[in-house]
C-alpha cells in the first residue's frame, strides 16, 4: 500500500490502467499477531491476458519501473504485431526471456514444458528468486489468461494459500 500511495505511481497507473483489487488469500492472526499476508500486482490486457506480474511488496520506484516496462513493451508489441495474437505472445515471451537472462542470469527457458504445474515443480524453477520465477513463467506462457496463472503465482511464488477466508484466527501451539 505504501508504494501505491506514491503520487507519481498513482498518476502513472491512473493514466495507463484501470485498477481493481481482489482478495484471493488469507493471513493468520496467532495470539493477536499477524502472520503472512502478501500481494501480487498484475498488469493485464483488457481481456485478462497477463503482460507482467510483480510478486510481493516492492517500493514505489520498483513498481513504477515494472509498470512502465509493461506499458512500453505492450506498445512496442502492438506496433509490430497489431493483428496477430501468436506474434504478440512470441514478442512478450521473448521480452521476459531477455529479462530473465539479463537480470537473473538464467537461460534455457526456450523449451516450454508440457504444463505449468509441471514446470513450477521442477528443481531448477524452485531455486529461482520470486521475480525470476515470474519471468520464467511468462517467457514460457506469455499473455496467459490470469485465471490460469494466479493460483501458481500466489501459491508457488509467494508461498501463500488461495483462500476465501480473509483472516484465520488461531492460538499458538
Amino acid at each position: 500500500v505504501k508504494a501505491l500511495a506514491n503520487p507519481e505511481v498513482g498518476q502513472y497507473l491512473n493514466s495507463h490502467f484501470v485498477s481493481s483489487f481482489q482478495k484471493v488469500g488469507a493471513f493468520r492472526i496467532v495470539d493477536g499477531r499477524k502472520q503472512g499476508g502478501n500481494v501480487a500486482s498484475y498488469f493485464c490486457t483488457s481481456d485478462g491476458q497477463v503482460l507482467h506480474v510483480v510478486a510481493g511488496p516492492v517500493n514505489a520506484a520498483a513498481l513504477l519501473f515494472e509498470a512502465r516496462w509493461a506499458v512500453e513493451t505492450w506498445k512496442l508489441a502492438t506496433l509490430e504485431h497489431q493483428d496477430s495474437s501468436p506474434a504478440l505472445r512470441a514478442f512478450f515471451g521473448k521480452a521476459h526471456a531477455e529479462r530473465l537472462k539479463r537480470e537473473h542470469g538464467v537461460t534455457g527457458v526456450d523449451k516450454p514444458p508440457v504444463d505449468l504445474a509441471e514446470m513450477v515443480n521442477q528443481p531448477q524453477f524452485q531455486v529461482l528468486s520470486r521475480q525470476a520465477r515470474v519471468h520464467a513463467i511468462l517467457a514460457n506462457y506469455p499473455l496467459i489468461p490470469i485465471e490460469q496463472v494466479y493460483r501458481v503465482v500466489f501459491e508457488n511464488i509467494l508461498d501463500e494459500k488461495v483462500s476465501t477466508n480473509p483472516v484465520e484466527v488461531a492460538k499458538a501451539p
Partner: protein
Amino acid sequence: MVAASGLLVVAWLVPLAWFGRAALARKTSVGVKPGLLAIEEPAVQSHRPPVAIMEASPRSVLQPQGMHGTSLDFVCTPSEAAKQAGDRRKLVFLLHISGNFEDSGFT
C-alpha cells in the same frame, strides 16, 4: 470554518439558481402556443449540485470509497475494470491480496 463558508455559498447559490430558472421559464414561454413547443430541461440537471459546489468539493468527498489510502482510483470489481479498460483503450492493473484491502488493519 470551511463548512460554514460552504453553507454560506450554498445559501447564496440556491436562491440565485431558482430565480434564474424562473426568469428563463418566463422568457421562453412568451409567444409560444401550449402543446406546440415544449421546452424541457434535462431531468439530470435538477439532481446535480451547482457547478461551483462540485468543483469546490475535495476529491476525498467525491470518491471516498475508491482509493483506500492509495493514489489509485479503484473500480469495484476486476470485471468492471476489464470493461472500462476495453472502453477506454487502457490496460488493467489488478492486485491480488491477502486479507481485506479496504481495511488497512487487514492487509
